[in-house]
């Protein structure tokens, strides 16, 4: 690409995208928004921990009915055949 072409493209670019006004200012005070962002940052670890616990232990915590049925069956089996308890414990 020739230097002349390069200069023409630069000119076209300057005409297509006029430079921003160096005196441009934000339309509002941004400090409250920065403070809000900092607040979110400091609260984030607590939120993350709480949501992790909620995911691991859903609240209210409920045990499905088939778990209770399984536990009851195991209880009946242990009472009926107490000699099998050491064998169960060995294989756990």
């Amino acid at each position: 690409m020739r230097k002349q072409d390069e200069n023409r493209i630069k000119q076209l670019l300057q005409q297509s995208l006029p430079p921003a006004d160096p005196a441009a200012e934000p339309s509002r005070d941004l400090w409250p928004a920065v403070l809000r962002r900092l607040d979110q940052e400091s609260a984030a670890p607590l939120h993350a921990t709480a949501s992790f616990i909620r995911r691991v232990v859903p609240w209210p915590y409920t045990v499905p009915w088939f778990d209770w049925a399984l536990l009851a069956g195991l209880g009946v089996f242990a009472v009926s055949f107490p000699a099998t308890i050491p064998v169960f414990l060995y294989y756990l």
Partner: protein
Amino acid sequence: MLRQSEIVRSDPVPERSDNVLNRFRQGDLDAFESLFREHQRSVYGWILRIVRNSAAAEDLTVETFWRIHRAHARFEPARPFEPWARRIATRAAIDWLRARRPESELTDRDVADLPSNSSPDPGIAAEIRLKTAQAFGRLPPSLRVAAMLAVVEEQPHKDVAAALGISVGAVKLRVFRAIRLLRKDLLEQGITP
């Protein structure tokens, strides 16, 4: 909420700038606010030059000062604050440009909405200007930012290099590649520059 142990507040008293920088490094919120008040306009103006969208520039100014606060412990008070802030602002602006879809870049509305102190040349058709702006928006963000700052905003190459964290030679190379890609794109659209 901000906890007292994380950010130390103290009574605002007039003091020298290096003291403010030292206090900022230690996490003092008042020193941070003082730096924010002093530099927010220049940071906003720098970001506006890159993203050319007033609303986005405001959001990115907030994002930049949040990043600055997060990095306060890494700041070296012996060095000037402004170039450091500008570098963080440039990185935030490039992240924003990368996240934005290329086809939504630099529409005629963006060009018209931008606060500018110069008027376009009536000799160049509006359609050509728009197509050039759109072609420019399709360039990779790293090339676009270098060309925007060096060619459109006519910032010194040294300042652009410092803001991008690259050498002056690398800035010149990026500008050259951007101009070459732009020329190719315009030729493909049937526009002979």
